[in-house]
């Protein structure tokens, strides 16, 4: 009985808390994310066009574009500018490859003090680790589905 009462009380309190807690505007966040993500993609497109014009093949230009964006993100993370971009742009700067680079470099910088092995080595993927693990898992699942579809044709 006491448990049920506490549960009800806690539920009411949590509801009250969510009523008095201010939240970011979702629409505004979406717009900001759209602008930020779009800008990053545009920069990528500029790189791509530059590499193509320099006479690289399509595949090669794509790889170099990815590498350039990663380099840019790493530099901006080191200069402590990337967090400011994400603070404003939210998911717009988290989702592209630049966000991934940021999530790998940030722990590397923070944990360097704890040593090359137990600091950087063990902790570099604390944020990106789940993305890598489940990214590989889901691409494996997608691969199997693709294989089955091919077989059925």
């Amino acid at each position, binding site marked *: 009985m006491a448990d049920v009462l*506490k549960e009800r009380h*806690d539920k009411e*309190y*949590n509801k009250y*808390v969510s009523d*008095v807690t201010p939240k*970011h505007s979702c629409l505004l966040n979406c717009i900001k994310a759209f602008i930020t993500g779009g800008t990053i993609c545009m920069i990528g497109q500029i790189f791509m066009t530059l590499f193509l014009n320099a006479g690289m093949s399509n595949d090669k230009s794509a790889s170099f574009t990815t590498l350039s964006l990663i380099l840019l993100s790493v530099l901006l993370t080191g200069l402590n500018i990337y967090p400011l971009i994400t603070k404003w742009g939210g998911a717009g700067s988290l989702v592209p490859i630049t966000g991934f680079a940021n999530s790998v470099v940030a722990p590397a*910088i923070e944990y360097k003090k704890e040593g090359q092995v137990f600091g950087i080595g063990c902790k570099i993927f604390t944020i990106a680790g789940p993305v890598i693990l489940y990214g590989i898992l889901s691409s494996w699942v997608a691969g199997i589905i693709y294989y089955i579809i091919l077989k059925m044709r």
Partner: protein
Amino acid sequence: MEQSKGQQSILFKEPPYVIEGASVVGDKEGKGPLGEMFDHVSEDPMFGMNTWEEAESCLQKEAVEILLSKSRVSKVDVKYMFAGDLLGQLIATSFGLMKFDIPLFGLYGACSTMGEAMSLGAMTVNAGYAKQVIALASSHFASAEKQFRFPLEYGSQRPLSASWTVTGCGAVLIGKTKSNIRIMGITTGKIVDFGVKDSMNMGACMAPAASSVIYQNFMDLGVDESYYDMIITGDLGYIGRTILIDLLKEKGYDISNKYTDCGIEIFDQNSQDTHAGGSGCGCSAVTLCAYILNNIKKKKWKRVLFVPTGALLSTVSYNEGKSVPGIAHAVILEHCN
């Protein structure tokens, strides 16, 4: 005279004095509304050290050094230190206070540590076990972020309910030497859990604990809010303030016109981008030493109920789906001539 009052309170027979207070803070706190009042503001967030943890230790060391020199007390005349911080296994305290060679009680009360340290310090002095003791607590924005959230350079959006950990250490000398401020009594808080699981809304997690300890203080002493000139919580922030006022109203007490929170006082919400306000052990500790003690000394407030608040969580308990219970400890501070 019976010193134990009610279920959770003590009124001291010989109330110890708060002889002196000292505060050391970082740059952001120095630029806040209380900036002028701190004893030392360091522009270097590393405090000349190599790591964030060392920086926080340095905060504690400097605060105690300033405290000893301000009060002209030699460290051999301090019987005990009651100290704590937020880091795992209290490393800021261990490495910061080692060199003083003073017997130490290391405390963990999350952000309520200053209240816990002062309570135990005052009890020790009142009981005659020591002539003078030091109570202190510290926190550092970067070491707390690293331990509880993300690496500093990682980009993320802080919710509006999130608070900003104060970089700072406040230390007080409690003893029998006369001063203008006395610790009349204490009310020790219980762990209160209203089932909030959002660690980014600490005000909501801790407000029930603050409400419980303030209510118990009124009950044990047989008083109401009019007994105090000011009731000041540790780091409930803006959301916690709203909730605390509502919770106490439900119990029939309206503290809204004599209540503030250290987390609200220490930063300017609009210009400093601190969302819900300041937090951390250092928040209540430095605000006490720089702002509250001064106002009691100047007699602006004659009697203050100082209530540091703590959220009892770790990244492990949070990941394992536990709620975030709160705790708060009340200290009655009074002006005396």
